[in-house]
């Protein structure tokens, strides 16, 4: 059948918008073919394929902003939607935060390891990767294995009425493997493999990690409340960094939803901690050469030598904060691309030796904030929780909750490993590359009844 050219679609939207009398238009089109294989109890539960085009449209008229996201991309339907949007713009209120879209054209950096034709060619044989992961987890000690595999290829195109034309072609493949080594389901482990190119994708390794961890987690005892030195595994710390990346978004700072609101240029972590947002990372799961306003992306140091260095901006939040865009648009909410925790000099065993006594937490979920402004939160460890005694990983524990403050956590970082892992899964939306991170004096709570 005849395929829709997404560049033509973007161009059509911009021209139609301008015909309707708006001041500016941006059309961001995503065309993607995505495959998923879900598995549980060592067998495939469902395989899925999506073949979709999604159009996001931004228009401004007399400083009033309207937007839409549509999947019905027939010209007739798009015209109707744009007309409705213009009607809304006519009666809406002016946005005090309005700023013109940036004027192009721009030159964009060419990214490496973000496209692999071998992933494009994958068909139903992706089911084989799931089989491979299941086998590997079972061999490593798992009894029941579950998970999700995604592979996708596609293109994102941005066209704006301010002379911006940008294209980004990419591929992705990732697998989440969760292993259970007992019938009750408390001896858990998880493994991931996340990549833009097939040669760096390793479902067996992910399965092995899940299986081994679940085996180690057998026969856990209930943890005790108190204050501990904690070693956060990459999956766990990535979850916390994902939430922290939102705290850097100027939108959330302005909304009263960031604990970093009064921390710009202030030290919140030891001097050895540097965390960047890197949109150009080779094989970065969310690497992109342009932001949603068409500005060429760049590396930004979020925490530089322990100090909050910048918030993340689009042109509108930058105007409000009297600064320049950091190329992190989001038309409304600026966001990070790939969060990278700069590595340390510890090996894993050296980090444990340094911590001596405490708890190793491999993964977490259900992170919730009592107050986003203060940063008070709790999160529930899973997929391997172990006591560390005399610098060694000892017995498994269960039933604990990390109940602390996110800013205090950064302040109390004591060390981190050389080795890092790229993390992206159901509980980590923004890709994070992080080492194992040791934090002192972390509050652990448990059920009282």
């Amino acid at each position, binding site marked *: *059948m005849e395929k829709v050219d997404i560049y033509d679609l973007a161009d059509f939207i911009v021209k139609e918008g301008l015909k309707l009398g708006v001041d500016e238009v941006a059309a961001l089109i995503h065309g993607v073919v995505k*495959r*998923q*294989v879900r*598995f*549980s*109890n*060592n*067998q*495939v*539960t*469902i*395989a*899925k*394929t*999506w073949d979709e085009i999604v159009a996001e449209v931004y228009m401004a008229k007399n400083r009033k*902003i309207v937007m*839409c*996201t549509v*999947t*019905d*991309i*027939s010209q007739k339907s798009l015209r109707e*939607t744009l007309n409705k*949007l213009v009607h*809304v713009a006519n*009666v809406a*209120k002016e*946005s005090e935060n309005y700023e013109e879209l940036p004027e192009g054209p721009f030159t964009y950096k060419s990214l490496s390891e973000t496209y692999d034709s071998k992933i494009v060619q994958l*068909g*139903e*044989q992706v*089911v084989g990767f799931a089989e491979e992961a*299941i086998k590997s987890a079972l061999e490593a000690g798992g009894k029941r294995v*579950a*998970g*999700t595999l995604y592979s996708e290829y596609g293109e994102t195109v941005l066209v704006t009425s301010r002379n911006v034309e940008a294209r980004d072609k990419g591929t992705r493949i990732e697998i989440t*493997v*969760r292993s259970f080594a007992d019938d009750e389901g*408390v001896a858990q482990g998880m493994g991931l493999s996340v990549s833009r190119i097939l040669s760096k994708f390793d479902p067996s390794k992910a399965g092995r990690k899940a299986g081994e961890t679940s085996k180690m987690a057998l026969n856990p005892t209930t943890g005790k*409340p108190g204050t501990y030195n904690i070693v956060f595994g990459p999956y766990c710390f990535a979850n916390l960094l994902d939430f922290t990346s939102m705290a850097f978004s100027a939108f959330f700072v*302005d*909304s*009263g*939803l960031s604990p970093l609101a009064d921390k710009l240029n202030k030290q919140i972590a030891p001097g050895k901690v540097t965390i960047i947002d890197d949109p150009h990372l080779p094989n970065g799961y969310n690497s992109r050469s342009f932001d949603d306003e068409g500005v060429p992306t760049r590396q930004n140091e979020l925490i530089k030598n322990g100090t909050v260095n910048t918030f993340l901006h689009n042109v509108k939040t930058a105007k409000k904060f009297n600064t320049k865009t950091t190329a992190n648009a989001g*038309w*409304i909410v600026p966001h990070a691309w790939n969060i990278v925790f700069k590595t340390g000099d510890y090996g894993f065993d050296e980090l444990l030796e340094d911590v001596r006594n405490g708890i190793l937490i491999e993964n977490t979920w259900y992170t*919730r904030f009592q*107050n986003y*402004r*203060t940063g008070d*939160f709790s*999160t*529930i460890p*899973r997929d391997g929780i172990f006591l560390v005694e005399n610098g060694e990983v000892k017995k498994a524990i269960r*039933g604990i*909750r990390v109940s602390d403050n996110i800013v205090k956590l950064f302040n109390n970082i004591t060390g981190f490993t050389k080795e890092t892992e790229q993390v992206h899964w159901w509980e980590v939306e923004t890709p994070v590359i992080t080492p194992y991170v040791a934090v002192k004096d972390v509050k652990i709570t448990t*059920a*009282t*009844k």
Partner: protein
Amino acid sequence: MEHEDLAEYAIEVGEKLGVDYIEARLQRNLNNVFLLKNGVPEASGIESSFGIGVRVLVDGGMGFVSVNHFTKELVKEKVEEAVKIAKASSKVRKKPIVLSEEKIVKGSWKTIFRQNPLDVPPEEKLEILLDVDKAILDVGNRLKAMIPGRLLQLMDTYIYKYYVNSEGTKIRSEILGVSGFAVITVVEPSTGGFEQQYMDVGATKGYEVLKEWNLPKKCADLAEILIKILREAKKPVTEEVDVVLGPQIVGIACHESVGHPYEADRILGREAAQAGESFVKKEMLGQKVGSEVVNVVDDPTIPNSYGYYRYDDEGVPARKRYLIKNGVINEFLHNRETAGEFGIQSNAAARAMGYNREPIVRMANTYLEPGDYSFEELIEDIKIGVYMKTFGEWNIDDRRFNQRYIGKEAYLIEKGEIKHLVKNPILEITTPAFWSSVDAVGKAELMEFEAALCGKGDPGQGAPVWHGGPPARLRKIKLGG
């Protein structure tokens, strides 16, 4: 609606290819969204999705595809693809998937409403948010507190579905709804302290629901109590006490520690990789898990509720489900796949949030059934205790065994009377201990529901739900955390 013929064509194609079962769902979701941040309209917008999702069962393996461009050629190509991936899946199964036997249904249903949200001019919708913002600021001015964080959203939703399957079921539905949220952050100028709370509203009803909600007053009341918490709340007691939970906390507990662990797909391990499994096992049906006054229900048939539906997304007629009856596990939530595995009929819990999502087991409206206590009777014999009216932070482990709710608006109870506000009391408790500690439940007139979007599935599917109940009393609880 246009393209219904393509949904039926998908069934034809599947049958010609010899599938064991095929269903197609043509679905349009249309949301009109208005967002106001600190009094400034951030953006107004439309979210519209329209397409066909097709699910097939072949040789005991399941495949799902979706398309959002409407040509016969593409539909044919995608059904063929679904068959191909279902066959590949079936090879990595020891046991074939079998769907439960269900009656063939031909029908249609719509939301009952008086004022169609789609007929309300956008400027009126924005005006509502501006009124709410003003009401919040008025509270700040009156009480001499700062309210620097005011994030407000109002959204109306129209969902059209045409569901057809190879057994002959055909159902059309049209759902209208209105929803909104507010996040309010207040600051006490003298100390620089912050308090913050999130609030959700939602119903499948016309715009007349805005009058019932009275959002300006609701949000102003919330801002006022946050300021009071900042200024007046004292440390909570640490000894073992009796606790009375308000409808909001009773509701979230019903949702998190009864609804979720009673989802049969979790019990069978199908969600294990993400949302997790359940501490509840198949063989626990009929087992006592709470005191005799505990009756927890999930009911999609409550008219105008946020979780309302007449037929689920597998064409099964909706009905009320007693999850816990007199403290005993009575029933789990099923779709046709889990019901097939249990050898029973589905109780219509299959929901799909868009054309590009598979139907999975979901809650609808989950609540604690009322008892016969007035609020005064619930607290009259408590010498020392805490009334936790609302919560801020909450979470629960992935087996739904260990949960925590931190009180937001909470009061000391002393000698049977409500006293001063207490700050952040923490109820951290296992599920069996929670439901076994309930010894009294409030009357029907004390029932309240709250709206939420329940998260589950991969890719995620935010399902509109209500949860609620009357206040309930729990004996001998050590607050901590």
